[in-house]
């Protein structure tokens, strides 16, 4: 027995090592991770990397407008990805836009997760009428498309508060709207997980020891429901980024002075037929790549954390 346990001590965290191991064995995961890390770091350090501040209108020169990327004829070495019609450096705009998109995506998912996990835990653990009520609410919420709810809400608030106030708080509005619209995804997953975990004997054991429902939910059940939460979180971040881009594209998101990726794509749309393809295409490519790598990472994570594939070393 001593021999056996000494080896188990050496690989002290099987779960972790399994996670790391399968990561190293998956080229897709490695490439996605690298690409994602590059984009995320570039976005995070945008103020230091970007050649100019794309929010400062005073720095734009109308003479530089619609310059193509450097590798094209008439490209200007100052503007790697060219400029938009106002003479704004596309590279800087994209870096700042990605930063905004990621920020909104992550924060919106945090809102979703908080709402969804709390509601899912309560619905699953308490059960009965409360469960039915909460889950019917989730069903109703899901039967409206996220975008529809967001468009109505944002359009109405834009009309009520006026454009200026709206633009000031646009980022919070977007986070809250996308956050609130998608909580049922989390609530359903967490509830299903709680229902499965609730049947296990460690929960009964905790009840026999006299622990209260809050303690059992948070200390005992929630840690065992984390794997699926991680998995949907990745997918949800990707979804939230797309939602934000769509809303901005429709003019219901970030103001033109602080363009996110969606708004950049939209603003370049009018010039695509005049030959200035880069204004739309380059942010578009960045958006697609970003969402793609997040989804690929999520896929890989789902395969690794799938409890049916992962049986432990029983």
């Amino acid at each position, binding site marked *: *027995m*001593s*021999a*056996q346990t000494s*080896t188990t001590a050496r690989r002290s965290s099987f779960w972790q090592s399994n996670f790391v*191991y399968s990561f190293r064995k998956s080229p897709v995961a490695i490439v996605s991770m690298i690409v994602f890390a590059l984009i995320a770091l570039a976005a995070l350090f945008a103020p230091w990397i970007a050649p100019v501040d794309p929010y400062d209108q005073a720095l734009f020169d109308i003479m530089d407008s619609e310059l193509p990327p450097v590798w094209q004829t008439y490209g200007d070495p100052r503007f790697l990805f060219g400029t938009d019609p106002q003479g704004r450096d596309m590279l800087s705009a994209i870096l700042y836009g990605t930063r905004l998109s990621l920020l909104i995506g992550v924060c919106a998912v945090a809102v979703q997760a908080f709402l969804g996990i709390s509601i899912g835990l309560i619905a699953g653990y308490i059960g009965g009428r409360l469960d039915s009520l909460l889950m019917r609410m989730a069903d109703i919420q899901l039967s409206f498309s996220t975008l529809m709810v967001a468009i109505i809400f944002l359009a109405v608030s834009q009309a009520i508060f006026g454009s200026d106030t709206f633009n000031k708080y646009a980022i919070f509005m977007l986070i809250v709207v996308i956050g609130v619209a998608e909580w049922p995804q989390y609530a359903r997953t967490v509830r299903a997980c709680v229902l499965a975990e609730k049947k296990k004997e460690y929960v009964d054991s905790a009840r026999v020891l006299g622990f209260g429902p809050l303690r059992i939910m948070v200390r005992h059940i929630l840690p065992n429901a984390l794997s699926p939460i991680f998995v949907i979180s990745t997918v949800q971040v990707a979804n939230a980024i797309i939602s934000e881009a769509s809303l901005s594209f429709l003019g219901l998101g970030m103001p033109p002075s602080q363009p996110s990726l969606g708004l950049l794509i939209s603003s370049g749309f009018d010039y695509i037929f005049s030959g200035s393809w880069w204004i739309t295409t380059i942010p578009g490519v960045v958006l697609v790549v970003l969402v793609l790598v997040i989804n690929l990472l999520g896929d890989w994570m789902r395969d690794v954390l799938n409890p049916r594939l992962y049986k432990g*070393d029983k």
Partner: protein
Amino acid sequence: MALLSVKDLTVKFAMRDQSVTALNGISFDLAKGERIGIVGESGAGKSITGFSLMKLISKPGYIDGGQILFDGQDIAQMDEPALREIRGNQMAMIFQDPMVTLNPVLTIGEQMVETLRAHRKVSREEAEQIAIVKLREVYIPSPEERLRQYPHELSGGMRQRIIIAIALLLEPKLIIADEPTTALDVTIQADIMDLMLELCTTNKVSLILITHDLGVVNQMTERTLVMYAGRIIESGRTREIINDPQHPYTQGLINALPQQTVPGQPLKQIPGSMPSLNNIPMGCAFHPRCAYATARCKTEIPSTLRFGAVEVACHEVERLKAGEARANEVGLAKAKADGPATSAESANALADTTGS
């Protein structure tokens, strides 16, 4: 000639960076119509033995060496089409859990007819007739109706009977039963054991019964193999092994049963637990748990020796045998002198037996 002759069978599992040996040089013979039991605790490799005999080991497991001669053909070297011909047709397997072995979306009849028609050129009607005959053989009441039923409509015992009927459909020469009664209740288990015994003797079918239950082995089989950590450590006639086990592990296994101890007294436990496959001790795999282990046991893998009526893989059998004879005399004399132990004594004895 033996129906099945396994020679030095080794099965490995490819793990991350090394391969793990699940079966380490298993050899045994099985005569036509003979019933043998493979006994061991979980992790001993008894189920893997059953699967490898049909070459049902799937990745990352593989047969690393040795022969499985079935009717003179080496199964270990066969390709898939040849194996399909053998599986079901000449060898059948019965699994532990009757709840999951049957396909839940097909009726009993569909499953039986499909099995028959995959191997025999028979019409649907003929196949149904054969199925009904087989269901009758396993004492299933009104078999015509059962054919139209789905597995979930039947009880566990009934399902296990149907699984046995399916195994018998193609009149195999060998049935491998992996814990066939473990998932069943005691009264049903007794019925199923009777049934299997009867079918094997009347049809002259050989049986390999894989189980952890020595009582089941005792009632079902003529010969027993005891496995520990991927090796056969003792084999011989079932009666001999149960009445007079030679290997310290077999002795420990039998002595640990509650029936072997006066009620209320501490059981004779084996310390420690079965090693995991990637961490099998050097030398005799049992030595860390063995009370008789010597320096030799820690370094040298014991070879199988004929000892009396059984074959044992243990360095210390002879010494053990001599010691046991002495202990028996002393023990009997002591038991006569003392009479039943008082409760104070038993409490003391209990306090001494702290788990390993």
